[in-house]
């Protein structure tokens, strides 16, 4: 089974600054990767996913992530954050050819200050 590490439990940033949320996964022959966002008092919403193809994945709300196989990373980035991006972000991974069930990281709390 996959394991997922989100190194930062909390990332404070000022509005309009760039941000990177880090995610590393355990090595696998082939892996599917996801970033979810959870706004306060809501469920999880898919931001973006990597299944195959281009290693640079663009998602909703201006977010993008890059799949780096050699570093087993899938970091999430946004060039300019907004107050409304304040939320909990979860990285998840599952092995292709396995079950539908991803392993989730512990989450990173993005706090955007005005």
């Amino acid at each position, binding site marked *: 089974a996959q394991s997922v590490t989100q190194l930062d439990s909390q990332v404070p940033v000022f509005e309009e600054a760039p941000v990177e949320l880090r995610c590393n996964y355990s090595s696998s022959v082939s892996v*599917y990767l*996801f970033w*979810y966002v959870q706004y306060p*008092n*809501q*469920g*999880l*919403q*898919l931001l973006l*996913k990597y*299944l195959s193809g281009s290693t640079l994945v663009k998602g909703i709300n201006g977010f993008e992530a890059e799949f780096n196989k050699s570093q087993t990373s899938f970091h999430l980035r946004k060039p300019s954050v907004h107050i409304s991006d304040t939320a909990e972000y*979860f990285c998840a991974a*599952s092995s*292709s050819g396995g079950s*539908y*069930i*991803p392993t*989730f*990281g*512990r*989450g990173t709390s993005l706090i955007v200050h005005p």
Partner: protein
Amino acid sequence: SAVISQKPSRDICQRGTSLTIQCQVDSQVTMMFWYRQQPGQSLTLIATANQGSEATYESGFVIDKFPISRPNLTFSTLTVSNMSPEDSSIYLCSAARDSYEQFFGPGTRLTVL
């Protein structure tokens, strides 16, 4: 995509009682899951709800404590039985079709006194 609703959205319960959470998907899905999310923590999978058969439970979760039903391809229930304060958590329902992408409900926020 799939839109998932959960009832109730939140509840406050007394210890020793049981609560049943309902999960409704707006279209047929292959798989449905139940997760627990304790305050400030990540998601922990409780079980996979199998249509027409017994749920598949993860290590540390048992059917007597968390009975699950899935009578058709769009509906599932999770019961939290004989509750204690340690069961206070957010319970999330999710569903998946073929692409390994899971869609999540808004969650049920449970407080046990």
